[in-house]
């Protein structure tokens, strides 16, 4: 076991897969000498060369589109979108192309591609360096979406995503990059896509969440444990495919469900989770399903006051848990 940050887990997964499989290569903005704006790929250019660490023009549609073409030819590209806020020009390539290539060609062509991008707030990133984009993509069949939040899950899932035969959008919460440290198993560490993790076991209510909010929810659960409320925290880790069994198993046990995510509430991933519980576990519930999410404004503003007001926090989550437990 090695202790590392989420950022180091991303770097190690990329590094080890590039060493293991020569079909894997990286393309994106500032990934070369700069080593990515967070220094994730620092040293990669020297180690792997210009053919496999490609500084692209500042053009997101072609970052994704060129990667799609290479993937169709049997390569394993890892395309980087510098910030999730910049992914919109690549939307056509990800949604209209990558996600549909296997289906539209009835298996004739495939697209084993990973698109990595840092997302999320809490870092004073303002309106255009802090958005969550998962709701814009999880509606799309053919695409897989990961949003891990621990170093072990990040390294294990990114490794699995690169080896996956389908396109994967890999969301990395940028606040976790240096904030979250943890142990990662040595050797070939894989976390399968589509499997949730119970981050904290509990009897009284279930929090279903992912990303940075996993850590906030566990912190909140520890706070309210002192008050005698025993909360379970389910970290989805993968948003698409979603681990429906893990959600239903937890909710059927605790009979209360709180969904927490940083992304806007309306039409967010939480809406789908709530619908799933309402459809398949309604008779197990002792209380209405609650959601604690980002408000329905475009994103968090630059001012600290906007950011604090937008982001769910351990305190806000603890308050929502108390309310749900008391119902």
């Amino acid at each position, binding site marked *: 076991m090695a202790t590392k940050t989420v950022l180091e887990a991303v770097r190690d997964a990329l590094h080890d897969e590039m060493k293991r499989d020569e079909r894997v290569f990286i393309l994106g903005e500032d990934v070369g000498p700069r080593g990515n704006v967070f220094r994730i790929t620092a040293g990669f250019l020297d180690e792997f060369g210009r053919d496999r660490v490609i500084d692209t023009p500042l053009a997101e549609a072609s970052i994704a*589109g060129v990667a799609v073409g290479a993937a169709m030819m049997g*390569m394993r590209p890892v395309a980087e979108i510098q910030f999730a806020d910049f992914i919109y020009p690549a939307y056509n390539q990800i949604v209209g192309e990558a996600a*549909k290539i*296997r289906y539209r060609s*009835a298996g004739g062509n495939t697209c084993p591609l990973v698109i990595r991008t840092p997302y999320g707030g809490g870092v004073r990133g303002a309106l255009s360096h802090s958005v969550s984009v998962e709701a814009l993509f999880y509606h799309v069949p*053919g695409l897989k979406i990961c949003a891990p939040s621990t170093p072990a899950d990040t390294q294990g899932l990114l490794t699995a995503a690169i080896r996956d035969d389908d396109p994967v959008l890999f969301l990395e919460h940028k606040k976790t990059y240096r904030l979250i440290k943890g142990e990662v198993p040595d050797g070939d560490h894989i976390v399968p896509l589509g499997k949730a993790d119970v981050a904290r076991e509990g009897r009284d209510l279930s929090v279903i969440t992912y990303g940075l909010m996993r850590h906030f929810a566990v912190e909140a659960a520890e706070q309210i444990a002192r008050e005698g409320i025993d909360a379970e925290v389910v970290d989805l880790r993968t948003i698409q495919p979603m681990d429906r069994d893990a959600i239903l198993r937890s909710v059927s046990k605790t009979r209360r469900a709180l969904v927490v995510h940083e992304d806007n509430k309306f039409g967010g991933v939480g809406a789908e989770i709530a619908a799933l519980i309402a459809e398949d576990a309604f008779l197990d519930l002792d209380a209405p399903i609650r959601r604690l999410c980002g408000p329905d404004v475009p994103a968090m503003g630059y001012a600290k006051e906007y950011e604090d007001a937008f982001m769910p926090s351990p305190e806000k989550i603890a308050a929502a848990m108390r309310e749900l437990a008391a119902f």
Partner: protein
Amino acid sequence: MKSEAKIRAALPAGLTPEALRGMYYYMVLTRLCDDRAFALNRQGKIPFAATCQGHEAAQVGAAFAVQRGTDWIFPYYRDTALAIASGVTAREQLMCLFARKADIFSSGRQFPNHYSVPDRNIASISSIIAAHVTHGVGAALTFKMRKQPAVALISFGEGSTSEGEWHEALNFAGIHRLPCVFFCENNEFAISVPQKLQMAVKNVADRAAGYGFAGVICDGTDPLATYAAVHDAMEKARRGEGPTLVEAKCYRAMSHTSDDNQLTYRTQDEIDALKLRDPIPKFEAWLKERGLIDDSALKEFKAKAQAEVDEATDWAEAQPPPTEADLQTHLYANSPTA
């Protein structure tokens, strides 16, 4: 009649009299497939057809410049002749028109002419204009990384060149001097919008200067002129000398598709005038003049192509359509495959 040796010597590099007769056959076969598609549409047997009439010479010329089994083609939805001259059969073409389960391009999922034929190196496309251009560039990047001697032929209409993704693709290819050829079939209309409302430059080829490589113009109603231009560009790319933008000036003989009516944006006189540019009689005359084909051979070619299309139509019509269960296949790698 000139001697066979003299004719051979006058042909562009890589072409033989047999190849010319092959080109002619594919042009005729494509025209008949195209006519059949529109007839089936009018009979209510298929919901949709898109024409390539007026493009046959350009497409067949380009197809013959491709090294089969080595190069890859990233076509667009009007490339029926390019596909047929690259090995797609009349049966396969009719299967996609009828949207049959065993349609090898998409199992009846996509509009006609959205080829995916991996065993003949033709990549899958959607209907989203110019979205495949970066894919061809990604393929060319792969060839360069793997040091493969392959070239990507990426085709599109002149309307595609207005898309931002088209620009991004050419920019990327120019920076890395990738082995690809951008092949524009300029038929002067993007559905109804004429070229002058798509761009302020006279030629699509003029745009190449912005990407640091050459733009070349050829007569897209002449299969040999197109072959020569595309062949030069493909071999240049193969030598590691980077991409070329080839613009084949052709025309669209009919409405955009079976759902369009060209009389809403051009006059009958304009449409009638286009008939003079029809590449098939032009090439027929060229071949006859040089003694490469005679009337009886022409008759035989046409009869053979007609029989092939008739047989393919009857056969494809009799094949089963997809079922409800087929809706779920090939979504992910672990989805059902049949």
